[in-house]
């Protein structure tokens, strides 16, 4: 019996990013689902049941990614996804010159498993996914 192909969900309000990263992931034989608004995430998670999430931070709010990540990791509404790895992908460094510092986060915010800067380098992205989602 063949192993199920892992599914990666991209949550990002930038359609160009979704398109480009979808191609990278599909070429690496992952299934891909995407959501373009944080408001649609709950429904999409229940429908797609992803094995890993690529999560943009700055969407409707500058901090949507933080709120969503914390919800997915801690809310009873997302109990089935508490252990699902999340990778933050953010353009904040490109826009402001500095990154979000996740090292000091603790109580009050459950963070992601990894954090990558946009523009994402395909090799770096796939390596990080393989670390978190061994095939």
């Amino acid at each position, binding site marked *: 019996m063949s192993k199920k192909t892992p599914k990666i969900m991209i949550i990002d309000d930038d359609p160009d990013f979704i398109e480009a990263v979808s191609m990278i992931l599909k070429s690496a034989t992952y299934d891909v689902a995407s959501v373009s608004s944080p408001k649609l995430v709950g429904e999409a998670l229940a429908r797609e049941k992803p094995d890993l999430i690529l999560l943009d931070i700055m969407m409707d709010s*500058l*901090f949507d990614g933080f709120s969503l990540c914390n919800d997915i990791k801690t809310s009873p509404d997302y109990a089935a996804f508490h252990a699902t790895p999340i990778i933050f992908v953010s353009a904040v*460094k490109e826009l*402001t010159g500095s990154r979000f510092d996740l090292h000091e986060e603790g109580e*009050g*915010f459950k963070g992601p498993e990894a954090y990558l800067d946009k523009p994402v380098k395909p090799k770096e992205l796939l390596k990080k996914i393989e670390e978190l989602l061994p095939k």
Partner: protein
Amino acid sequence: MKTIETGHLARIEGHGNVVLSIDGGRVKEARFQVIEGPRLIERLTVGKTPDETVNLVPRICAICSASHKLAVIRAMENALGVTPSKKVLLLRELLHMGEQVESHSLHTYYLALPDYLGYPSAIALAEKFPLEVRIALEMKAFGNTILKTIGGRFIHGENPVIGGFGKWPTRAELTWIRSRARQFMPFTLKTVDLFNSIAYPDTPESDTVFSCLNPSGGRFGLMGDEIILSTGDQMSVQDYRKLTNESLRPHSFCKRSAYKGKPFSVGALARVNNLGERLDGEAGKLFRKYVTPKWKRNPLYNNAAQAIEILWSMERIPQLVDELVGLPDEPVLAVTKKTGKAAGAVEAPRGTLYHWYDVVDGHVADGDIITPTAQSADDIERICFESASRLLAAGKEGEIVPMMNLIVRAYDPCVSCSVHLIRLDGGKEKRRNLP
């Protein structure tokens, strides 16, 4: 003789304008007119209980109502012998940080930035500077959220009381505030870089005396029992009238202050100039990176100083939460003393705010409020006069009105707080019991 008038000064809190009298090709007089109606707040305190007064006086203004709340509480506690606990002081400081973030982001991004980028308003900035407008909106909202969480409401929160707090925030509320302050850091650092990369025009760049509170322990901060001036002079807050020496002007509902006969300035630039060497963390690093001798001579750098203070606040918030979550909630302290008089002061976003009350048999007999704008008003007038004189002498009359707007706005004046009912009896006030 002719006059040059700015008309209504846009993008300041309240209503004011600048009028210049020109004679023989020279500026004879500059008048910073504060023409908003008096609010009579001090008189309204007479006969009220201390608790009623704590509820009443912050209504003087919605922008810095938390500072007024903290100042009246400090004055009443000093007058009635109440010593608040460490937890109460930490939570008041956190409330203060919320107001600082809310007010400074409002002034820097919404009120001042359009001047320097050549736009009529912050709304007009949105198309070309969407990130800056998003930072402005969310930074202000974060400050408001702190005010609501700690104070009970976005504006005029009634949770802080004499001797404590009516309700303590939950651990989850506090840790959320801590996380969000940290998450803000890239945007806060960008704010500092933005307001320190602006090419602020030269004003006359003459010496100014700066005054602010001197927090204990050699710290940078917004509360203290002593006043410190850039001249090196220091005095107790209880002697604040030796600093302010208020007098009246026929063209202004805002009383004027002068120290040793000279105008002085308060606000973020005063704090950062007087206490900046005490800043640590990223705020300290960036203060040392950006500060120049111009900061002591050009009020337009108040915008740069406010950005440094936003960063300092965002770094201070997690420190405060770290301390707060380890301390147990406490009941409000009982007030047993019925009579006493004292001053209390805090640093409002736009400068030192003094409250003084005389309480007799459990009711206020007299009150005195001296706001930041009332202290800086004469210096605003002085800088306007010198700047207009220079522009006129250089044949640049057309640049005078825009420059007057820029100068007044840089001070972030709160005209609404500063107005008093004044009575011109030979220039002297008739009050009974002031210190």
